[in-house]
């Protein structure tokens, strides 16, 4: 795939539609926030929406959709892997809460 193909994107109309979609997701995020869910549920919701939003942005706004699959398969797994590994800090984060030295 070369520039010629990636040059003929879907055109602005489509991007405007995507943009509206993104704004809607942000709207949903705010609505969810004021449902006053417990923090954990809220976090889950917001993260899901944020990742959806980010995915759309990467896919269309950053034109990843119009690049070679090789690029997608190089960047995304690397990032997902790193974030997955970073999650190994949580057990200690909770330790801070449960084993806190009772000092004032």
């Amino acid at each position: 795939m070369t520039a010629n193909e990636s040059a003929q994107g879907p055109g602005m109309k489509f991007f405007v539609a995507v943009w509206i979609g993104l704004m809607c997701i942000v709207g949903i995020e705010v609505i969810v926030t004021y449902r006053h869910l417990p923090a954990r549920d809220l976090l889950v919701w917001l993260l899901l929406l944020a990742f959806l939003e980010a995915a759309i942005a990467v896919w269309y706004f950053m034109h990843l959709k119009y690049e070679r699959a090789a690029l997608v398969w190089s960047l995304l797994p690397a990032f997902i892997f790193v974030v997955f590994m970073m999650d190994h800090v949580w057990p200690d984060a909770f330790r801070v809460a449960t084993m806190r030295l009772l000092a004032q």
Partner: protein
Amino acid sequence: MSEAAAHPPVHHHTAPTGFIRKYVFSVDHKVIGLQYYGLALLAVFIGMVLSWLMRLHLGWATLPIPGLEKLSPAGAPGNVMTPEYYLSLMTMHGTIMVFFVLTTAPFAGFGNYFLPIQVGAADMAFPRMNMMSFWVTFAAFLVLMAAFFVPGGPPLSGWTAYAPLSAVGQEAGPGQGMGQTLWAVSIAIFCVGQLLGSLNFIATTLDLRTKGMSLARLPFSTWAWFITSVIGLLAFAVLLPACILLFLDRVAGTSFFIPSGLVVSDRMMPHNGGSPLLWQHLFWFFGHPEVYIAILPAIGIISHILPAFLRKPLLGPRVLISCIAGIGFLSYMVWGHHMFVSGMNPFSALLFSVPTLVITIPATIATLLWIGSVYGSRLRFTTASLFCLGFISVFITGGISGFFLAQPSIDTYLHATYFVVAHFHFVMAVAAIFGMFAGTYFWMPKMIGRMMNETLGKIHFWLTFVGVYCIFMPMHYLGLAGNIRRYAAFTDDYLVPLIPTHQFITIAALATGAAQLIFFYNLVWTRFRGPKAPDNPWEATSLEWSTTSPPPFDNFGGRQMVVHHDAYLYGVEGAAADYVMQTSPEAVKSPS
């Protein structure tokens, strides 16, 4: 119009003439490579001198070291080193060696010089960015050196700068004031430099390969540098914010790494609710990949050099490359093994120990491939090949002790003892340095156009090889005896009997260090007196040997190289010589 046409990848800038543009702010990757190499030489010399001072102090704690008072009146009153100054020197030794030697020489130095040549490019993808990456790194070095001369002296919290010792400021001791701040700044700057470098390496490897240089035909060294840059891209990206947060804790009064209610030297700290373990996680998330950033280029370099002297290809080149990549991949899953007894959740310890042990598999495969390649060869014994063999030996020795430290249960006893010091010096420091030496003796003819003195080289090798075993092997025994590292002196009842061993190590260290002076002399002698080097002194096959020594400004004198073969066609049947250059059109069936 195609993208390639829109952005011609080969940079047709003409050779600069002025001294500044030619040798100082040069965009030529070869000059930058030499600059990195020079920086590493300077750094390694400083780091080595520091280790001499440390070893002297460990052997004879009250021994006056002439002139030390000049360097630091407070740190060495009457030329006798104070414990805190010992820690400062140790911290600087670690930081300088890990960042400015082990990362700079095998990766940035040789990588900058040879990666573009080995892929057949005229220069890096982004020459200006390349220049920037060096000067940023150099700035980082200057900032770190400045720590020697600020009040309080250099930081004393080790190269890992564990918070809160590194975060609470000078209450925690001299050097924890200005010195530690400079440390954080220096490392943050260093990260930026390495990120720029990594971007350049990746783009160059993927985009600037000359015709016929498919990824499968890249030399091992190029593969290693490429994989290392990918690791660096993700690892330094974590250290950078970590250093920024540490900096904020120190100057902006935040408490990222500082918990509530600390009383340091009878003063209540204003900080609140931070977590020291958070620093350790951020640091080691970078820190473990960093170990591989140091060692993988060395692995690539010796894998590149060995065939030229074995006169036959290595066993299973694809397997070897997969091993390098596999090690790089695993390096992100194991950082917790530095934190087994750190107060980390004990479940995580089990989780981290398994991939740590698994790393030994690709490492073992690589080692066996090297050993198996030596079998049935008629080895040409040059200094370069000797250092390659030495590398294999120390890599095995250092790797083996990994078996112990990878297990939380055994680490319970061995953690923070000299066993650990022995382990990482063998597998990371000495191995990477051997790779650097091998590269130097192998490539210096190409880099400065003169042959190095083989006799001096061989003397250097023997003294170094035996020397490092005399220094680091006994540290295993000390570790088993429970000898704690990072002690300025040994006053505990059970440590006192071990002091003679430390004195032996000190003597070995001084001798081995002295042997390095032969190397420095050899370099200088070669630069000015060495005999002119032919274009291909080792009868090697890869692209750097298809050009003049040293290569012209655009590497191949305006020629666009075309590659026809794999990188290591040695001992080829029915070929004109016993080897076939990558660029030779001669049609041969590659030996399996």
